[in-house]
């Protein structure tokens, strides 16, 4: 299976924040969720992919090609939605389209207007008069109107109402049905990823914590709940994050099978949600 995106040892140093040796790959025809708390480095990775910022080291390959050497060819096949849609505020949607469309050889005007109707966006409306949700819908319409093979979305659902969030996720799921299109989707809303993502890449403080298939992650990771008497040096080192309370503890493990072996009856072992994983890996250890 070919990878639509391959990132190897990607580095970017801002002084007060650094992306350190980030590596992961996204196979063609799948949705990958890039998840992590605010300020983890998700937007930095997306900006590096789109060459909006310069890398300090490492390699980014999209469609098997270097994203710097083949910038134009790669970007022609990418649809992007930034966390803040940077379209020209004073133009109507029709005119924004007129500024963007000539850049894409495969631009499909019919599809664009069909998407505008589907999203209830009037073509003559000025971009600045749209709500945040409508701006996101418009950005998505632009991203989809040139038959992009790879859609990159940076926090597209944050600040959106639940109805449109579901619509957007359904749209993304439908998009990859032909097994040719792929989606990279950054978010800190883990519920969105549980609905649609095939792969999850978790980033924290500029470092990749894990990057794997969602089912594999949800199968391996577990939350262990038990009495405080179970906590000793050995069990503490086994857990990735612990939240200790007066009458017991809750902890995260990346090895559910081993947890069941260690605590066959003395603890409750539950499947960990992505939210659990994110919580314990970013804050949980502090509660130990």
């Amino acid at each position, binding site marked *: 299976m070919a990878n639509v995106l391959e990132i190897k040892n990607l580095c970017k140093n801002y002084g007060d924040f650094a992306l350190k040796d980030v590596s992961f790959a996204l196979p063609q025809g799948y949705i990958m969720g890039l998840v992590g708390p605010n300020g983890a480095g998700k937007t930095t990775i997306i900006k590096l992919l789109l060459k909006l910022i310069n890398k300090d080291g490492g390699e980014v390959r999209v469609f098997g090609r270097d994203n710097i050497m083949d910038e134009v060819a790669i*970007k022609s096949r990418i649809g992007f939605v930034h966390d803040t849609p940077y379209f*020209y505020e004073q133009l109507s949607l029709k005119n924004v389209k007129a500024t963007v469309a000539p850049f894409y050889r495969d631009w499909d005007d019919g599809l664009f207007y069909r998407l505008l109707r589907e999203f209830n966006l009037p073509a003559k409306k000025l971009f600045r008069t749209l709500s945040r949700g409508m701006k996101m819908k418009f950005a998505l319409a632009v991203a989809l109107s040139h038959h992009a093979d790879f859609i990159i979305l940076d926090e597209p659902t944050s600040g959106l109402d639940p109805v449109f969030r579901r619509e957007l996720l359904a749209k993304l799921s439908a998009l990859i049905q032909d097994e040719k299109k792929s989606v990279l989707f950054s978010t800190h809303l883990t519920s969105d990823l549980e609905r649609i993502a095939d792969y999850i890449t978790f980033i924290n403080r500029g470092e990749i914590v894990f990057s794997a298939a969602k089912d594999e992650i949800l199968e391996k990771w577990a939350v262990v709940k038990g009495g405080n008497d179970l906590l000793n040096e050995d069990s503490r080192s086994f857990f990735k994050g612990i939240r200790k309370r007066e009458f017991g503890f809750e902890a995260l493990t990346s090895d559910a099978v081993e947890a069941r072996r260690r605590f066959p009856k003395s603890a409750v072992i539950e499947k960990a949600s992505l939210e659990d994983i994110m919580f314990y890996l970013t804050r949980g250890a502090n509660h130990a």
Partner: protein
Amino acid sequence: MRSLILKDLILNKKFLLWMGLLYFIYVAVFGSRIDNSRVTTFFVTFLCFVMPVMIFTREEKFKGTVLVCSLPATRKQIIMARYVLGWLLMLGFFVLATVAILAVPGSKLGPENLLNARTLIFALVLMALYFAILMPLLVRFGMVGFFVFLISMQVLGFVTLALASQSALKLNIRSSIAAIKNAFISLNSNLGAPAYYALLIVVMIALNLASFACSVSIFKRKDF
């Protein structure tokens, strides 16, 4: 590059039409009162050169650079489009300004004063100089770069005047300026007008190419 120029024209369509009208009236009213073709050229070329500055800083105002850099275009292409559009706008507004001055009844300058090779080359050289110096500053600092340019020009003028008022330096400055002027005159008489003008154009093209290379290098290093 065509897409990039088209994008700027769509984005600034109304602005350009209004500014075109305003320029026409302004230049017609004030430009027609000046009776010195050299002063008129200074006045008109400076106004022409301000136009691309305004267009490019509007892009910055609307935070459009992130969008443009996300589209399928290299940073070199983006800067190249700015240089081409900048020159198209300067030349377009120069033609408009010249027509405005000549169209006003009772204008103190006629076609013989403005439409001769010497005045036209002088105008081109001025625009090329302004543009070549300012563009890297605009790319690096945005609107602030334009102010840096204007303030530097004023400071330069102030320093020159201050130095000129010192009797010890007075002679040197005057003689330096005279020497530069004489060098141009001598070049003109030795080469003959056509070759002299061609040389000036070649030098200005080289200066703009150097400015372009500098702007590309600055823009490539920028993070958005």
